């Protein structure tokens, strides 16, 4: 995530590395990353012991939708990174619009994910259809819940914390929101290859 201007914690102490947003919030991010790391590890272990079954079921996924969703999520992260840059000392109106753009792109991701779920369920691939689809629905489902929380949080942040007058508290909240959103993006960068591409 790009550093923000005069209100960021590192700018207060130039030359000193500081985490974006509230440092304590990174405990949440670290714990959440740990949870996903365990999920990925468990998935890889089960995949290794049922490799042929996993590959056969993986090949039936609608990978096209996942590719579009990847582009959507990367674009949303870029928009939010630019928003954070503009929020401190830049064009705050543009920053607010970019935060809302991120939320809207997140909502698009969620809508496409629901379409994907409907297609899979109609094809007979339900949550209890097999080990691969169990993991597919659990991992992408937990990620989707994270994303929906992020959409709500960013909509709130855009409405309440990117105002015309600048305050250090608002900047910290925006940086926390951006850190969380980048985590969602980063997790998808593991989920996409693991569930859709790995052969």
């Amino acid at each position, binding site marked *: 995530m790009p550093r923000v201007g005069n209100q960021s914690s590192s700018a207060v102490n130039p030359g000193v590395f500081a985490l974006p947003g509230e440092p*304590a*919030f990174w405990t949440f991010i670290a714990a959440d990353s740990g949870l996903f790391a365990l999920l990925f590890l468990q998935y890889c272990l089960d995949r290794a012991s049922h490799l042929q079954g996993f590959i056969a079921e993986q090949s039936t996924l609608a990978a096209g939708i996942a590719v579009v969703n990847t582009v959507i999520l990367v674009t949303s992260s870029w928009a939010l990174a630019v928003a954070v840059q503009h929020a401190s000392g830049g064009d705050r109106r543009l920053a607010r619009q970019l935060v809302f753009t991120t939320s809207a792109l997140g909502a698009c991701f969620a809508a496409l994910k629901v379409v994907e779920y409907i297609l899979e369920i109609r094809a007979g691939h339900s949550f209890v259809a097999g080990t691969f689809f169990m993991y597919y629905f659990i991992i992408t489902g937990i990620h989707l819940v994270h994303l929906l929380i992020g959409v709500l949080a960013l909509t709130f942040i855009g409405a309440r914390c990117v105002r015309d007058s600048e305050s250090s508290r608002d900047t910290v909240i925006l940086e926390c929101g951006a850190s969380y959103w980048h985590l969602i993006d980063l997790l998808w960068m593991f989920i996409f290859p693991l569930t859709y591409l790995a052969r």
Partner: protein
Amino acid sequence: MTPYEARLVRLSAWSCFLFILLFGVFWGVLGRNIPPYPPDMPAADLAAVYRAHAATLRIGFSVGAVSCAFLATWAIGLFRIMLKIERDGQILSYVQLVGGVLTVIFTTYTCTILLAAAFRPEQDPAQIRMLFDLAWLTLDLGFGVTTMQYIAFGVVAIGDEREKPLFPKWLAWLGIWVSLEFLVEIIMPYFRTGPFSWLGMFPYWLAFFGPFAWMTSVAVWMLKAADRLEAEYASENAPRAPRPQTTI
């Protein structure tokens, strides 16, 4: 915080340690719940265990049920400290208190359900397994009130405006994460084996030992907070030096 109140808050913090110790030893070890028997265990095998160990299971679940009361006293002590942090309305402090007290009901009730299975171990094995299922489903799916408690505490602790907060903010965020990790219990009823079943990594090892570690940390900082609040009270109420008398 007056010295009397600080003393009681310290006791409430110690009651958290006591709960974890008693619940761990009696419900966990004597009640044979570390780890629990798997959901796919045949009813006859489970009934055989309950018949063979009925005596230790009964004492385990009886003391386990009683020990849950210490969870309530912990929540009350935490509530009193939160009142000193939450400036306006103090609704979240009450949410924490209610969430903590309702968690007591779920945990106590779970112990008594298991006790019912151990009380008549000669009964139909299918009934023993049904009681066992009921206990685990109740315990795992009763997390909603606990989530409410942890999030309310987290929001208040994060909003602490003291230069040095009474509770570290990382602990508050960790509590919020722990409470949200409970959500994995929602998918637990779909599985009888594997990492998402009630003895799996996510619904059991993470969702039980995570909160116990977190509660222990909160109780440690409650002891520190009680000391600080008592010192604050003492400095606010210290007798002032008499004014020098002026003579005309």
